[in-house]
């Protein structure tokens, strides 16, 4: 570890923190339907959209209608994307003559993008046409992110309102999230990325003649516009196979830094939106504080592990940290930081190959996802994810003092706790259940490229990443098979909807409740005590659920590697 590395990490945290308040203030206005700086330009577009689609912007929805709209929007989005992937061979903008995507891969990819997972069973440059990348994937990057924000805002309204039957209009929330938040940031962001060197062209790939006289085919495309939204919307699906490690997706250390900031910025600012909407910004800062503690701890472990180097490399007396699978321009610190950010948020873009991380360096990204990506998290998904844990933490505190738990003036009762537990339990069911299945079935065992405990970690990582809607991978796993494509897609769907629907049920139930005035017995939820309680609950639930699986994978591998053991594939 170097001083410069820690300065890069500290600077990153400072920049994200500085953006929380201004963006939080702006987004609060957007979701409250107030006038913003951009209203003169976007107002007419927004009103036009409502007119053609027959939406009354003032008409709010009951939580059931809101949920219905969310599901309908996803189903239609899935149908459009699936059709486009299957038909790409006959559609325009296909200069590389890519063939139609196979049915199981198209199913997996469509599910992956509508659930904001962006798991890549495909290699972008070898599988998809430019039209599929733009019209198919880029637009789902926007819409799945906008949907995540909408659900988070609906839940916040549940806390902020009292004695009402409605939690907002999904159509309005999703439109405003897209038009006022995502698009206006993406436009200058794309131009910045092109300035840094990311291509943005419809020309086909180029054949270069290298200095030594060999032919090198260089894949190109409209990359920058997709990279901007895949980071900002915490989607993470790369234009190219290796994602943000590719020099065309992430050409400089500066583009890398800005991409890391853009992964966290909306999720972090949503905690401020939460604070503002419930009328006490300190509530938002407390949640951000809990997230921050977990984040910094994760970065410290990963950076330490990667800087110390891998056991094989150290065995040869090589120093300088574990550079296998990392790019020279980023180095150890920026690669370790990126790995923790992308899995803390539900981004899943990678700028280094997680599969080649050291055992303990790879453990942190895995654990981040297993906790449900609540450390900042996906846009919207992170906030509603951690609010589920807040409900459980409040419940636990209530049990300790024998008092009906309250949060922000709302009584937390059986229904909320049950829904919260449903949201928490569906993730380990998918992650651990499918991992267990894959480790006994021949179709599952055919996947891992590495032998020994690392092979087990590859499988565990895949299902964890899918159910948590992250999308990053231990890339050695051969996942483009019928077995993996379908089981991973199921994991993604359950991980998305069996969290979202309970969250919306909680929102509806809370919005209908009366507000109880705070009394001397109310637990303050804006101070250090509550932050500690929340972090404790998260670690206890996460630890109890996932420690055995981590012990079988990364922990065993670390101990074996320290003893100098290696594992040969096929042996």
């Amino acid at each position, binding site marked *: 570890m170097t001083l410069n590395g820690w300065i890069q990490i500290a600077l990153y945290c400072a920049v994200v923190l500085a953006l929380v308040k201004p963006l939080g203030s702006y987004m609060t206005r957007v979701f409250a339907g107030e006038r913003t700086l951009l209203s003169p330009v976007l107002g007419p577009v927004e009103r036009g959209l409502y007119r053609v689609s027959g939406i009354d912007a003032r008409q709010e929805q009951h939580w059931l209608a809101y949920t219905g709209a969310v599901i309908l929007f996803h189903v239609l989005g899935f149908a459009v994307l699936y059709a486009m992937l299957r038909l790409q061979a006959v559609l325009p903008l296909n200069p590389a003559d890519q063939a139609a995507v196979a049915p199981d891969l198209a199913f997996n990819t469509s599910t992956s993008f509508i659930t904001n997972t962006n798991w890549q069973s495909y290699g972008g440059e070898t599988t998809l046409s430019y039209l599929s990348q733009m019209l198919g994937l880029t637009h789902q990057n926007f819409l799945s992110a906008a949907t995540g924000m909408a659900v988070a805002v609906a839940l916040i309204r549940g806390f902020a309102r009292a004695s009402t039957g409605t939690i907002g209009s999904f159509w309005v929330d999703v439109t405003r999230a*897209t038009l006022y938040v995502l698009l206006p940031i993406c436009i200058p962001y794309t131009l910045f990325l092109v300035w840094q060197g990311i291509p943005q062209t419809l020309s086909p790939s*180029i054949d270069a003649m290298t200095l030594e006289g060999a032919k090198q085919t260089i894949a190109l495309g409209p990359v920058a516009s997709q990279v901007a939204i895949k980071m900002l919307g915490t989607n993470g699906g790369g234009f190219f196979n290796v994602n943000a490690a590719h020099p065309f997706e992430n050409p400089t250390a500066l583009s890398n830094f800005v991409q890391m900031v853009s992964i966290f910025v909306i999720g972090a600012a949503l905690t401020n939106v939460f604070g503002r909407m419930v009328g006490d910004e300190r509530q938002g800062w407390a949640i951000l504080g809990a997230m921050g503690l977990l984040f910094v701890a994760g970065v410290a472990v990963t950076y330490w592990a990667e800087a110390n180097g891998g056991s094989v490399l150290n065995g040869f007396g090589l120093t300088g940290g574990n550079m296998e699978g990392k790019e020279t321009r980023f180095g150890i610190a920026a690669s370790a930081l990126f790995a923790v950010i992308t899995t803390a948020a539900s981004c899943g873009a990678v700028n280094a190959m997680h599969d080649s991380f050291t055992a303990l360096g790879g453990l942190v990204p895995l654990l981040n996802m297993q906790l449900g990506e609540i450390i900042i998290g996906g846009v919207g998904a992170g906030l509603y994810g951690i609010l589920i844990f807040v409900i459980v933490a409040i419940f636990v505190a209530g049990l300790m003092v024998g008092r009906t738990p309250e949060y922000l003036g709302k009584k937390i009762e059986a229904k909320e706790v049950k829904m919260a537990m449903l949201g928490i339990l569906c993730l380990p069911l998918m992650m651990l259940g499918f991992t267990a299945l894959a480790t006994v079935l021949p179709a599952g065992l055919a996947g891992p490229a590495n032998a020994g405990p690392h092979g087990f970690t590859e499988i565990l990582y895949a299902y964890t990443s899918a159910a948590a809607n992250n999308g990053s991978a231990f890339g050695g796993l051969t996942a483009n098979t019928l077995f993996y494509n379908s089981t991973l897609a199921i994991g993604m769907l359950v991980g998305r909807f069996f969290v979202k629907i309970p969250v919306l049920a909680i929102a509806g139930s809370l919005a209908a409740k009366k507000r109880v005035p705070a009394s001397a017995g109310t637990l303050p939820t804006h101070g250090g005590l509550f932050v500690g309680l929340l972090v404790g609950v998260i670690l206890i639930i996460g630890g109890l659920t996932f420690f055995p699986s981590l012990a079988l994978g990364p922990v065993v591998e670390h101990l074996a590697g320290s003893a100098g053991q290696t594992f040969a594939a096929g042996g």
Partner: protein
Amino acid sequence: MLRQLRAALVLLTALTVITGLAYPLAMTGLAGAIFPAKAAGSLIERGGTTVGSGLIGQNFTGAGYFHGRPSATTATDPANASKTVPAPYNAANSSGSNLGPTSAALAERVKGDLETLKSENAAAPVPIDLVTTSGSGLDPDISPEAAYFQVPRVAKSRRIAEDKLRDLVASHVEGRSLGLLGEPRVNVLALNLALEGLARPSGAL
């Protein structure tokens, strides 16, 4: 319900056109107008032919060139379409090695590379980036140490004084972005282009 369906259908279509077509196409036009060279892939031309992209690494193997890092990219086997063969720096199919920290295959590969490198320059410690594959397989850069490490081999092959080559490397070291971010590095293609400009190689490469 019907109203919801209409709202969903029309809104989805309209937002798809805005974010999936209007946005990327407008960006393509704008980027091409403001940063034409970069939007087209930072291609480098020499004497009318494209020799590569300044951002994409190439597979240099001759002793008279500076080499990039090992690359794990592959290509379809021409003899059997269901198999792949190693094809370093294949810029149409980016890929890392995905070998884990306890992989025997990784240990074997590193061992082989170390022996080769030590035979070229026994005086200096082998820099870690010369025996590890990059994440993309297309890393255009090596560390300054890795460039200096190769000076004796290139100097011998091209019959150029080592001092002169060290100066050339030094002039191609790019510092951290803003003096702070990332790591110092040397772009291998740019260095090799400058090398060719330095003197015509005499003798075999």
